[in-house]
């Protein structure tokens, strides 16, 4: 495990996992564990992906038709279920990213500049 303790990491907010999964899959097919690891890595270990919550989320996205899944073999020669983002998934990602960016920007404006640390 990485050097940071889980307690320091940010727990994902409701609804953010879906868009992160879609974003991660833009770079190509990936299996569940790979997605979790990729999210953690790209967020510089800031985000903690609850592995138990990841799979129901993947299932939900699959039912919605935003991702598709296929069993395959991973780099370390194990069986894994690989997910690919669909066309509808890409559109959804574009919509969601935009929303999140606006939300973040708005939040920052309200919260103001970071206070000086004494």
């Amino acid at each position, binding site marked *: *495990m990485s050097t940071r303790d889980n307690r320091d990491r940010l727990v994902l907010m409701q609804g953010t996992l879906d868009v992160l999964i879609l974003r991660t899959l833009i770079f190509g097919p990936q299996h569940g564990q790979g997605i979790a*690891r990729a999210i953690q890595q790209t967020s510089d270990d800031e985000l903690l992906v609850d592995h138990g919550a990841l799979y*129901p989320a993947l*299932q939900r996205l699959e039912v919605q038709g935003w991702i598709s899944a296929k069993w395959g073999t991973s780099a370390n020669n194990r069986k894994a*279920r690989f997910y690919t983002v669909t066309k509808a998934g890409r559109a959804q990602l574009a919509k969601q990213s935009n929303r999140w960016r606006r939300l973040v920007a708005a939040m920052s404006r309200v919260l103001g500049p970071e206070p000086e640390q004494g």
Partner: protein
Amino acid sequence: MRLPWRRRESDFSAEVDAHIAHETDRLIADGMTPADAHAAARKAFGNVAAANERFYEANRWLWLDQFVGDLRYGARTLGQRPAFLATTVLTLAVALSLVTVAFTIFNAYVLRPFAVQDPGSLYRIGWRAPDSGGQEFRWRDFEDVRDQQSGVFSAVIGEHMRLVSSGGQSLSVAFVSDNYFPALAPRLLAGRGLGPMDANARAAVLSHQAWSRMFAADPSALGREIELDGRRFTVVGILAPQFTGLDEYPREVWVPYSAYAEIRPTAAGSEPPRDVEIVVRLRDGIPQPRAEGTLRPWAARMADLTKAPADLRAILLPNATANAVSMELLAVLSPVFAAFVLVLATACANVSNVMLARAVARHREIAVRLSLGATRARVVRQLLTEGLLIAVLAGAVGLAFAAWLLRAGVVALFSTLPPSLAALIRVVPLSFDYRVFLFALAVAAATTLVFALVPALQASRQRLTDALHGQRSGTRGAARLRSALVVAQVAVSLVLVVTALTLARNFTWLGALDLGYQTAGVHSINVRGEQTELVGRLTDVLAADSRIAEIAVTGGNPMFIRRRNVAVRAGSDRGQTGVKPGSNQGQAPPAVPARYTFVSPAYFSILRIPLIDGRLFTSDEARSAAPVAVVSEATARAFWPGGNAVGQTIAIERPDGRQQVDELPGYGDVTVVGVAADVASGFIVDGKDPNHIYLPVHARHPQASALLIRPRAASELRGGALQEIFRRTGLDPETFEAVPLDEMRQTQVYPLRAAAWIGGLLGAIALVLSISGLYGVLSYTLSQRTREIGIRMALGATTGAVVSLVMRQSVRLAGFGAVVGVTITFAALKFLSSLVRLKEVSLLNVAPFAAALVLVLGATALAAFHPARRATRVDPAETLRAEA
């Protein structure tokens, strides 16, 4: 439950396992020992079982899974209680079958499109004039439309339907244009339809029914011959059972129209009769009004010719089904449907009642389910599923019942109809199609909501702590509900019983009504297809037969309803007796609508109508169709009150006041020669004619259209004697329609009789249902109150007091129901009698109300008898011991 397109739980588990394996690999790579890495990976994943659970619940087919589970559970629970299952299913099945029968008949006559190609584009041409209308044309008119209107119609079909004798039986035969089969393309079981190649050929297509009856459904019938009025026709095709013709009267044989020329009994040279029906197929995209517009010149051409009204116009009537759905039709049928639905509602109330009682028994089970975390919605859904199971079973049993009832009903119809009419009636195939199945399913589902929802809501509303302790809270509401259901049932059965008794009373009243003439022994003979010129020919033959004692010729026989009203005005040229008191001198007295009938002098004697004043027609007057009249007593009284009618004159006008009637040239001034007693010559329900004038006629007169005969002895015309006499005219005996007047009378009241029987059946079923409902409620409360009764008896209550305890409850429920039922019936019949004004029918009569009340209250007392007796058998010692 597994569906092929659904992801399996095992697949999900495999994925979770793969995840943990990958994570372990990574942790080992990070430097952990394999054992630690695996534990850490498991820990990071969290609860695998919970993830599986979440996967399961995220599945969109969850409801189906639960539904299947509910079904399985429901089937098991119901299976454990076969008595409960049988009672509820049978109760509902009886009611559902009745509703299904009603719908099947409605479907066959109104909803089901004809089994032909594109029935929706078929229209029938009709003609309308200000005071008449019809759907019959001459063959020439048909050819006219066919040849000139191909722009709007893609097909124009002509058909003449008539009964033709075939080996002593009558067959309904369609004489059709050569494009009938190609244009309609009905399904054939064997052989081929008729076509242009059959012109002048003696080829015939049989209906499925006729094939089954005449050839016992033998496939070798193809190529064999059938006889139609002595001529032999070769069977070239057999139709599938679905198609029986383009209206509600099924045809049995189809032959080329050219064959009609051979059978047609018209005398050479006379004007061809209007007896062809025209059905057209409208071209795509052509609106009906436009098509009607293009027919205008055609209608005008027809109007130029003789015997057609001047201002005649053509209309198109939708002909996709036997009867089009219209508001009027639905308005007429809605009380009938209401009666059937009421019975269904009573059955639902009964089942609901049983389920409420059962919910009490299942109290504990439901409480356990609720405390284990089932939501209330989930419990209600489970109970509704059980209800649906019962309803669907009942629907299936109901369909089987309905099939049997329909067969029995048709048999009953033919065995109760007067025989001469039963021979004329043809019933369309009353088969189940997808509409009937859908209807049965929809009604079953709807009844589930009605009978199962309330008990389910009731059962799932409980306080867990009380329930688990075995206390029954909230049953007070259920008890009130059950009482309300019984009250409603008693009310409904009262409505139905009163209605049935009212119908029965009117039926017997009309049966015994004095018509003013004797029907016994008199036969009415009509000429089919308006070929009235044949009356004279038949009269000669009849007169030559020694078995016939009396013959009268008429312009329309009594009880055969024809539209023949004129306005009659008392002549003003003969002094003051023609002027009514109070009216201004010199002004013409008002015209009064009156029925008129052309009759030969023998008419009054053959029907034994007494002459009140003056004389009857002489044979000279009859021969010359002299302008003389016999008027009815009521007419004489109305025109010349207190005075002498004989010798006065009357003027006959069209009802709208124009002088003279087209069909009655030369009857502007008619001298009254006699006064005859009043008779009821139209619908019996209308009672005696308010006004009636008789005009003289002889057999060769164009107005003579029917005959009345009286044989020397009734036995003389048994069997086929009359047919044999008809044959002596040289015509097909089926040209004439002979009906004993007695049977005509029965026919007129037959609808009332049938309605009384059906109403009685419905009422009886509703009554039985409400009695069993009442019985259930009383037994249940009794079982709840055994302890109380025991204590009462121990404290010295007499048997009488205990009985009255039970009886009081019964009387309260039945009494309340009776009050509601009587009020509703009274209001409904009052409303109905304001709509239906029939002189000899009284809808608001005390006797049916009183009889129904006695019947219903007596029955409820009977229902209370057994529970009351059981109450008296309560052993005080036993109950007190149980108490301690």
